[in-house]
Structure formats: structure tokens, C-alpha cells
């Protein structure tokens, strides 16, 4: 088989034993890799209604057919599990050498099940006690990198913070609490390496396509990321009043200029770096404090800055660096703390810091990671915290399905608001790129309607494909026809005679499979919504002034979305869609292929 090894490594941490499990080629062709394959494996490996933090809950590292090729941005993996934050699917992407090293073990995915008896590390298949517990992910990486490539958790993961990350190469599989799943298994780190390259069907074609894609990746379409990074979003969003501020109470931040890329770059940028196998180079590193430095993305900047009412770049950069060291998802950390700040403002949480309190923010990040005091409550995420605080605070807890909302004001970007509401992972700008539609002349961004639904759906399909190939979404502007051009890549790597139409069907299948997992785990139509704040309060600021969403408008968009997908009006999957998913019973089932060979 070209592009794949046709098997995954299933390691039971309770028994300390691994086995190879065959993946049928038909499945690989229907799901590719990354999020697609990871979702299929999650269906297969996760017992129904499993507690995400129970030993039986699987944690899946899913590679892809393009990993290991010279195609730019292809060194990526998806980490897939049932989220302890949402109770639904969570699939975080990460770019790193871990993906290349992991695939060179001769597998298309690694599935961890069970739990260690004591804090441990899994190094090249050997499970051993770890001395790295309580260390930062970077310290764990430095200690273990002599053996191979490392994925590790921080203190937040060890303590079961429901929005803890898994870190590798300084990047994070960030959203949904994947680090807490690894922490519940008492596994500090996973180290991989191998010698098995993956053959490709047409090496000359792959080289030619890789050269062409690299060349295109250096053009206008990616220039923003190269020149300024995602941080460039801040000034743009602030200008159009779509920048979530003070826990979504405002959509403009009066200290925004100090945090903008246009200000940070000349004053603080000290380096620009790239992920593994990437020609774009979107990572911008900024200096702060006493010769400290950290990279920062827009999502971290907005969540730890405007969302918490903090405009001091020193404080925001320090907070972003602290989240990296603790292994915290910056969006959920910032969102949950901003929620607590509003609770303090309303008198519901007297001990919480107030908006603009930078020292309070930094202290609370540590308290969350260590589950100390108020931090113990906030480590549960804003939804559970709101349920415990009461006072109808759930109305302004900034989350969908439990996942904190990223840095896009839904009332100001109403096509994306739909994407947030129906997102399988929760509010998710990575799985719905509908902001592209809002930033266009195709819709009125302040007035979502049924047309928004069809356009939103298309961006979700494209994301499902790129997340399964896997390629970086920052390449999205270089493709004229994503499906046809991706098919050319897949043909060259796998030798399969696929075309754009087949990949578009695959993308729809991946979206449906993610939804099917949620339905299996108890999803109901009421889960596809937005917090009451977004459906009852109008925006007040700048060009978004007066923008409002209503229950009726959102429901109409959701209904249109479900019907456009071929699902029921409520969002359930018809039998024909379910049959197309080719789901299989778990390995406990007698028909399971069983172990083949140890690595």
C-alpha cells in the first residue's frame, strides 16, 4: 500500500502491552487520515457513553497519507478523543516532527487505552515510571528528545484540567482537554521514532507537486501569516467591531492598538519560525519582560487580552507563555477567566479578579493548572462553572457544547455563528471557516440567513478534507479548486484513482462521522445553539452596532444547514448516511481483526 502502512498501534497502558491492528484499505480510502481516520477509530475504540477520563476511553494520534512526503505543511497529526470538556468528539491538530517520527514506526495511528498504575512515560514502546511529573512540556521534551519525538502534557493535564493541552515541538493539540485525557491515563509523555518510510506511488509526481505547492505557499495568499502572523486579525476585527471584549460584552477594545500586530511587530518581534516541513513560517516570536520570549497567535492574544479587558502587551505575552508552560488551552483559559471576571463584576464570584487585572489573570492561570482555590472550579471550564455558580450565569458563559468560543464575535459574523452552533467539537473556528464568508461580498455579515447555511457548510467540508489530508489551512488561499488539486496529491501519493468528487464526498462523510459520534454519546438538537447572551443582546459598538441574532434566525439557519447536509431538520443522520460511514464494532467484538505484530 502506498501512503499508508495499513495498521495502527494499539497500546494498553493498563497492561503495558501493544498490538498492531489492521486498517482495511477501503477504510483508509473513505477517511484518509488525520481527523477522518481518527474519527473512524474513535467510533471503533470508544465504548458507548464512556467517561472521557476513564481508562477505557481511547486517545488517538492519527497521521495521514501525506506525512513524510516533501509536501509543505504536511507534517501534521490529529489527536482525537472524547472531550472531557464537552462530552463529544474533540480533534486537535498539531504540526510537528512527532507526526513524521510516529508514522515512521510503521503505523497510521497510535491508540492509547487503559491507564498507568503510576505516573509514567511511554518511550519507543517501553512503558516506564517517569521522573518528569510536575515538569513543563518543554522540560519533558528536553529530557526525552534523545530517544525520539515527544508529545507531553503539563501540570494542567496531570491535574485533569478540562482544557489541558498535549504539546509537541512547542505546538499544542489544544482544544477540548486532550491533555486531561492523557493525564487521566497518568502518562506524562509519549516518545516515538522509527525507520520505516512510507512508499509513495509516484515519487516524481510527488516531488513535482511538492515543489509547485511550496512555490505557491510563498505567494500573496499566505503573506499575512508570513509578514504578521495570525495576530494581524486583532486590529482588523477591532476595526469592524467583531473583537470579543470583556467576555463578549463589547465587540471593540479601546486598548486594541497596543496589542495589534502593527504595533507588536516593530516593537517586539524577535524571530519568525516554522512548523516542521513548512514553507510558510507563520510563527512570530515576541520579546517581553526580562529577555523572555514567546510565540503568540491571535486566539491567545484575544483570549488573554481584550476578552479579559487587558491591554498591556507585557501581561498578555506573559500569560500566553504561562499557558504554554502549564499546558493550558489559551482560548478556554481566557474564556473561563473572562467569565469569572464578569461574575465578579456582578457579585457572583467575590474572589475572582476584575476585568483588566493582569496580575489576577496570571495568578489564576497557575491556580487553574494546580486546581487551587477558585482555580479548581474554573479548571472545569465555563459551562460547568456556570452550573455551579448559578444566578443564570450560563447565559453569559462563553461556550458552545462546553467549548469556549474563539475570537470571533458571533453577532458580528453571523455565518460563523451558525458554524459555531452546529460544530461537533463546540464553538470552533478551525472546523468551520465560515468567517471567510462573512468577510466577503456574498453575505451581510450582520444578517445571517438560509443562504449563510449553504455557504457555511461548504467551509466545513473543506476543513474536513484539509484536516484529513492533513494540510495547513493557511494554504487555503493557494488552491483554486481544493478538491481537484487535493485529489492530484492523493493520487500521486497513494496511486488511487481518486478525483475531486470522491474527496468532496469524503469530506461530507467525515463531517457526518463526527456528528454520528456525538449522537451516539447523547447529542440532542438543543446542543446546537449559542448562549442566551448572543440571542438576546444587541451589539453596541462601531460598525456592528445594532447587530443581533435571535432564536428564530439561528434556528432557521440551523434547519437550513441540516437539510442542506441531507440530515433531518433536527440534525439527526438518516440511515443512508449512517451506512455510508462504514463504522465497525470495537476490538472487543469477536469479528475484530486482532493483534498482528508488535512494533
Amino acid at each position: 500500500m502506498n501512503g499508508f502502512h495499513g495498521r495502527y498501534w494499539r497500546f494498553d497502558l493498563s497492561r503495558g502491552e501493544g498490538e498492531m491492528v489492521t486498517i482495511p484499505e477501503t477504510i483508509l480510502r473513505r477517511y484518509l487520515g488525520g481527523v477522518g481516520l481518527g474519527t473512524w477509530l474513535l467510533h471503533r475504540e470508544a465504548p458507548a457513553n464512556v467517561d472521557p477520563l476513564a481508562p477505557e476511553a481511547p486517545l488517538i494520534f492519527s497521521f495521514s497519507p501525506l506525512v513524510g512526503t516533501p509536501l509543505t505543511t504536511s507534517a501534521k497529526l490529529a489527536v482525537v478523543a472524547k472531550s472531557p470538556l464537552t462530552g463529544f468528539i474533540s480533534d486537535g491538530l498539531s504540526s510537528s516532527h512527532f507526526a513524521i517520527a510516529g508514522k515512521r514506526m510503521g503505523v497510521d495511528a497510535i491508540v492509547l487505552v487503559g491507564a498507568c498504575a503510576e505516573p509514567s512515560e511511554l518511550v519507543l514502546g517501553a512503558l516506564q515510571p517517569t521522573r518528569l511529573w510536575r515538569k513543563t512540556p518543554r522540560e519533558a521534551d528536553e529530557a526525552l528528545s534523545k530517544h525520539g519525538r515527544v508529545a507531553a502534557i503539563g501540570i494542567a493535564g496531570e491535574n485533569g484540567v478540562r482544557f489541558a493541552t498535549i504539546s509537541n515541538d512547542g505546538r499544542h493539540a489544544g482544544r477540548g482537554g486532550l491533555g486531561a485525557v492523557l493525564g487521566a491515563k497518568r502518562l506524562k509523555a509519549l516518545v516515538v521514532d522509527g525507520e520505516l518510510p512510507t512508499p509513495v506511488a509516484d515519487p516524481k509526481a510527488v516531488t513535482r507537486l511538492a515543489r509547485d505547492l511550496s512555490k505557491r505557499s510563498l505567494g500573496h495568499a499566505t503573506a499575512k501569516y508570513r509578514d504578521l502572523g495570525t495576530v494581524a486579525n486583532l486590529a482588523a476585527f477591532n476595526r469592524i467591531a467583531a473583537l470579543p471584549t470583556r467576555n463578549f460584552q463589547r465587540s471593540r477594545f479601546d486598548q486594541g492598538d497596543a496589542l495589534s500586530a502593527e504595533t507588536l511587530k516593530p516593537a517586539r518581534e524577535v524571530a519568525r519560525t516554522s512548523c516542521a516541513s513548512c514553507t510558510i513560517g507563520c510563527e512570530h516570536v515576541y520579546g517581553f519582560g526580562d529577555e523572555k520570549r514567546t510565540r503568540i497567535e491571535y486566539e491567545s492574544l484575544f483570549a488573554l487580552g481584550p476578552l479579559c479587558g487587558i491591554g498591556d502587551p507585557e501581561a498578555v505575552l506573559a500569560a500566553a507563555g504561562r499557558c504554554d508552560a502549564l499546558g493550558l488551552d489559551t482560548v478556554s483559559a481566557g474564556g473561563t477567566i473572562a467569565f469569572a471576571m464578569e461574575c465578579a463584576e456582578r457579585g457572583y464570584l467575590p474572589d475572582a479578579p476584575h476585568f483588566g487585572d493582569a496580575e489576577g489573570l496570571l495568578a489564576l492561570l497557575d491556580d487553574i493548572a494546580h486546581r487551587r482555590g477558585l482555580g479548581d472550579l474554573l479548571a472545569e471550564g465555563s459551562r460547568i462553572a456556570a452550573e455551579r455558580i448559578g444566578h443564570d450565569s450560563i447565559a453569559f458563559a462563553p461556550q458552545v457544547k462546553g467549548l469556549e468560543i474563539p475570537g470571533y464575535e458571533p453577532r458580528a459574523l453571523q455565518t460563523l455563528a451558525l458554524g459555531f452552533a452546529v460544530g461537533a467539537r463546540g464553538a470552533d473556528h478551525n472546523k468551520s471557516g465560515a468567517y471567510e464568508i462573512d468577510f466577503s461580498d456574498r453575505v451581510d455579515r450582520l444578517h445571517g440567513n438560509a443562504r449563510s447555511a449553504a455557504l457555511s457548510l461548504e467551509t466545513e467540508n473543506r476543513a474536513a478534507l484539509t484536516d484529513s489530508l492533513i494540510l495547513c489551512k493557511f494554504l487555503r488561499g493557494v488552491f483554486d479548486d481544493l478538491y481537484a488539486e487535493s485529489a492530484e496529491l492523493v493520487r500521486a501519493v497513494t496511486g488511487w484513482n481518486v478525483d475531486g468528487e470522491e474527496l468532496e464526498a469524503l469530506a461530507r462523510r467525515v463531517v457526518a462521522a463526527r456528528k454520528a459520534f456525538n449522537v451516539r454519546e447523547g447529542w440532542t438538537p438543543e446542543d446546537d445553539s449559542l448562549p442566551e447572551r448572543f440571542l438576546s443582546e444587541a451589539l453596541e459598538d462601531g460598525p456592528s452596532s445594532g447587530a443581533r441574532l435571535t432564536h428564530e434566525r439561528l434556528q432557521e439557519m440551523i434547519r437550513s444547514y441540516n437539510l442542506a447536509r441531507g440530515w433531518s431538520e433536527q440534525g439527526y443522520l438518516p440511515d443512508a448516511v449512517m451506512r455510508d460511514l462504514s463504522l465497525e464494532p470495537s476490538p472487543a467484538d469477536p469479528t475484530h481483526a486482532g493483534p498482528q505484530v508488535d512494533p
Partner: protein
Amino acid sequence: MHAGIVLCGGRSSRMGRAKAWLPWQGRPMVAHVVERLSEVVDEVVVVSSEQLDLPPLPARVVRDREPELGPLAGIREGLAHVKGELAYVTATDAPFLTPEFVKTMLSYGKAAAPEVDGIVQPLAAVYPRSALACASSLLESDRRRPLALLEAQDYRRVDAAELTGCEDAVRGFNTPEEYLAAVRTSGDDSPVVLELLGRAQLAAGRREIETPVGTLAEVLAAAPPELELVQEGRVARHHLVSIDGRSFLRDLRVPIGPGEHVIVLDASVGG
């Protein structure tokens, strides 16, 4: 008691952007017209389409449920929401409308419409609230011309020569050229502000450039050429352009009015 009805549910297709938002005398066109009407009527109802958001107005805004049926459906919607016995109906692009003209038209005490160069002007006319049922039945029988409603009301046809300000009252603009020509003779010389964000700002070394009113193409031409804001007759693919941060556009022919801000963003904003 008299009412005013402003119709702004049209598609403004030749203009390329909603006429209601075109700046006139320092405010959006619809606000200007509402203000002029308010000087002589007791209430103003603005009939808009579901898709068009409007600026804050001292008027009641209602949605045209069937904008595809044309202006008669808008008139029906307006009549359904007025309290006054008579309503003066105007299109939203009536920058030269005077309160005196409206007052004269309402003084006839019945349906009335001016005739300019032999053409009756049903969108600068007075309709009685009691015409509501007739408007509905006309639409049901697929007769969509507002003139049919006037005719069914035994309306008074008024020769333009009898009316002061009549030709101005019916003078609107349907194209960017007509609008810009009107602006240039209006005495409002407020500049357009071209705002550069992101890479464009760093490359230009400044955030704002002031330039006279003009089409979007003319406004973008004020930026340093190395920014390449225009390519192949359209806004370049790697840029986004927004008017005042509300709507995004790519059509270089649309007019940009006095005081408006044209914001240039990277196309890959988001993500």
C-alpha cells in the same frame, strides 16, 4: 394626521450598493429623507427588505415581506403600518425632497401624484391608508405597478409646472455616476478616508490616506501603487475592502461618498 413612507427595499443593482446607506449631507441617505419628511408629517414608516440593515432612524422600520413583488408591495406594507389617513410615499433616493413639496401634495386631501414630462411619478405621491385593501387585491391579481393603485383611487394628477420643487422631489440616482455628480455639486467636500490595516499599513508606512469622493477604483488609486490593491479590474484577490467596516465589496464601480472610510484588509483575515 399625515404619514410618510420611505421605500428602501430595492436591490440597488445598478448602484452596486444599498442606496439607503449612501452618504448625503453627513448622514445616510435614508436618514436624510426621513428627517426631511419628519418636518411635515406626524409619523414616518420605513419599508426595508429582510436583508438590509438600516442605521438608527427616528422612524418605524418594517420589513417588506415580499420585496420580489416590487414597490407596490412596499407601499402596501407601509400603508398597513401607518396611522394617518394620508401617506406621502417616496423612494429612499430622494436627496432633494423638500418639506414644502410634501406639504403641498398632502394638501390635496386625497391620492395625488405629480406628472413630470408626461410621466406620472407614483413614488413621489400621496396614497390614502384606505388603499391598503386595493393594493393587496392588485398584487393578488399580479398587477404590480403602483400606478394601478393610484388609478384605482381616482387620484389627482398634478402637473409639475404647478408645483414648486417637484422635479427635485422625483430626482434620484440609479447609477454611481449620477450619485457622484450630485455629491460634487452638493457643496459637501468631505474627503473619503482610505484606511490601511495589516500588511498594507506596514508597506505604506501610514494608516490613513484622504482622497476625494469617487468610485472605489478612484479611491483605491490613492494608495501607493506597490500595494497592488487592484488587479485585472477588480479588488486584488489578496486584499479585502470594506466600507466603514460593515459590508465588503469587490466591484470597483461602486461610489464612495463624502466622509466614508474605505478599509483595506488582508484577504486571509481570520484563521
